[in-house]
């Protein structure tokens, strides 16, 4: 077998130009497929990174009536839905997929936050002090929220950079005052995400997808929430999963625990999972590209036919050689194997070159257009194996023709 392969290499090397031209179809086919696959993989990884990286493995769990998120401002709090007990929280924290969890109340569009005449329309959250560590925030100016703020019902607010820029342009907000529902709150500190993750933004679509989440955030102690919004408002939960892959499980299990405490009809807790969102976006980007793979496969078919054509020529050229080999004792099967090996080696080399060419193509395209790329090792291995199969399939007819040559006729031919 090894000798056959070595002989096949020799044969291919002694016809360099012809072998290369024969391989060209395979190279182009495999190359385009690898380029497409690399782009798909790159895009997918970037989507995942953008969404999950910006979320820091956090999953938020919100309350739904039917399929829409509940708004307590309009609907009020129904019977059978209560605030989350410490017992429920510790059950969630005990889940093995959960690294940390905290509960909070939230208005996504505040509507009643002002500084003088300047309005702020971002989110307001009533939180407990561990919120920042769960969400992956750090205080970079002033102080963080402390237990004493909750115990003393202190009217303090922590702002993120967007909120600070809206309400306090060009000044240091710490120690200054803003109004929530007419109540004065003192700005105690400013927070930002500690991971400093910046999603890669290349198009407006990317911008809309990833940047819509940072419309500004203001945090106040959950203890003073009733003063500005509502008494006994049922909380949402924010949790951080132990790793990115357990985000979905962590969210689903925690939501199940929470839903178990609800007796109200049609009301459930649901997790908002960035991993799932990422998968949806990935599916969208992959499905368009997968059609391109089918088109590229046609060039593989053409390449295979080219291989068959050249192998048939080669059989004709080597008629005497085949006849001689048969005369001195080579069996049909051996001649068959020799030609199959030659075809398979030829297309495998084509496949290898194709993978290299595909990666270079993806690099070049990625360099010019900014589309991300990533090398897919499995796909590359499959591509090489597949090109070998092409060689065996399309080399079969020529190989059978060679093995069936009549040695007398073959030796007689000049």
């Amino acid at each position: 077998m090894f000798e056959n392969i070595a002989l096949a290499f020799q044969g291919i090397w002694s016809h360099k130009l012809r072998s290369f031209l024969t391989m060209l179809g395979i190279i182009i086919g495999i190359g385009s497929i690898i380029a497409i696959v690399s782009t798909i993989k790159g895009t997918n990884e970037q989507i995942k990174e953008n969404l999950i990286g910006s979320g820091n493995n956090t999953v938020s769990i919100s309350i739904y009536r039917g399929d829409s998120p509940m708004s307590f401002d309009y609907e009020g709090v129904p019977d059978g839905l209560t605030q989350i007990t410490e017992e429920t929280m510790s059950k969630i924290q005990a889940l093995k997929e959960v690294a940390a969890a905290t509960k909070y109340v939230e208005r996504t569009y505040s509507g009643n936050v002002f500084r003088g005449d300047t309005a702020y329309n971002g989110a307001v959250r009533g939180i407990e002090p561990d919120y920042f560590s769960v969400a992956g925030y750090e205080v970079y100016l002033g102080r963080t929220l402390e237990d004493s703020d909750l115990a003393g019902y202190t009217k303090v607010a922590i702002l993120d950079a967007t909120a600070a820029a809206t309400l306090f342009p060009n000044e240091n907000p710490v120690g200054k005052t803003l109004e929530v529902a007419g109540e004065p709150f003192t700005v105690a500190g400013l927070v930002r995400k500690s991971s400093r993750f910046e999603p890669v933004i290349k198009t407006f679509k990317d911008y809309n997808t990833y940047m819509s989440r940072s419309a500004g955030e203001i945090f106040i102690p959950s203890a003073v929430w009733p003063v500005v919004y509502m008494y006994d408002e049922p909380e949402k939960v924010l949790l951080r999963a132990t790793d990115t892959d357990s985000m979905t499980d962590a969210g689903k299990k925690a939501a199940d625990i929470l839903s178990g405490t609800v007796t109200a009809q049609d009301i459930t807790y649901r997790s908002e999972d960035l991993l799932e969102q990422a998968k949806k976006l990935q599916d969208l980007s992959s499905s368009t590209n997968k059609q391109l793979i089918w088109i590229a496969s046609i060039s593989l078919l053409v390449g295979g036919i080219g291989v068959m054509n050249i192998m048939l020529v080669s059989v004709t050229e080597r008629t005497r050689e085949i006849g001689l080999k048969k005369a001195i004792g080579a069996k049909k099967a051996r001649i068959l194997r020799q030609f199959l090996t030659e075809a398979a080696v030829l297309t495998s080399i084509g496949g290898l070159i194709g993978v290299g060419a595909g990666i270079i193509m993806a690099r070049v395209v990625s360099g010019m257009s900014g589309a991300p790329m990533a090398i897919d090792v499995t796909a590359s291995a499959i591509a090489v194996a597949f090109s070998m199969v092409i060689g065996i399939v399309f080399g079969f007819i020529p190989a059978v023709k060679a093995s069936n040559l009549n040695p007398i006729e073959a030796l007689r031919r000049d």
Partner: protein
Amino acid sequence: MIIEMTDVNKDYIQGKMTVPALKHVNLQVEEGDYLAIMGPSGSGKTTLMNIIGLLDVQTSGTYLLDGNRVDTLNDSALAVLRNRLIGFVFQQFNLLPKLSAQDNVALPLLYANVPKKERRERAAAALEKVGLADRMNFRPNQLSGGQCQRVAIARAMVGGPKLLLADEPTGALDSKSGEQVMELFSQLNAEGTTIVLITHDQKVSTYARVTRHIFDGELR
């Protein structure tokens, strides 16, 4: 008895006509014989050689090669018999141009599944025997016609066959190289190899111990 042919006929079908190539051929060759078969072109001598060499099968009659009835054997069994019992020498040498002399000679041993090291050793010994020990790594296009034919003889002998079949072995050689080849044949025959030689050259047939003539498919 190495070759035993009884009433062998061979017909070729050309279109709707049946053309007889061999008619009622009877031939016995004992081990150690040196037989020349002479005949003009078209007389059927190549057909006869193909049947003796198991490259073709007779239409009727029986042929025993070293006691084996060959007309019932399948393709791969015939390949094995050719490999073990027969060494071929052709007018056009039929060496593989990409292989060295040594690799050309070793080829039949490859098909007999001899391990590589032994193949190389036996090929080297065979080349030494035909006087080409110093041309081991030369390719056919670097060798003269006479040298090529001696490489081909080494290839035919390397597996230790009982029968050496030669078809116009001197046909493509100058007279001096031809003589060398014929002397080599005589030497091999003296060492016990049975030789069947096909030629139309009177001078070549004188080297053989027995000469038979073939005309119009009839062996006399």
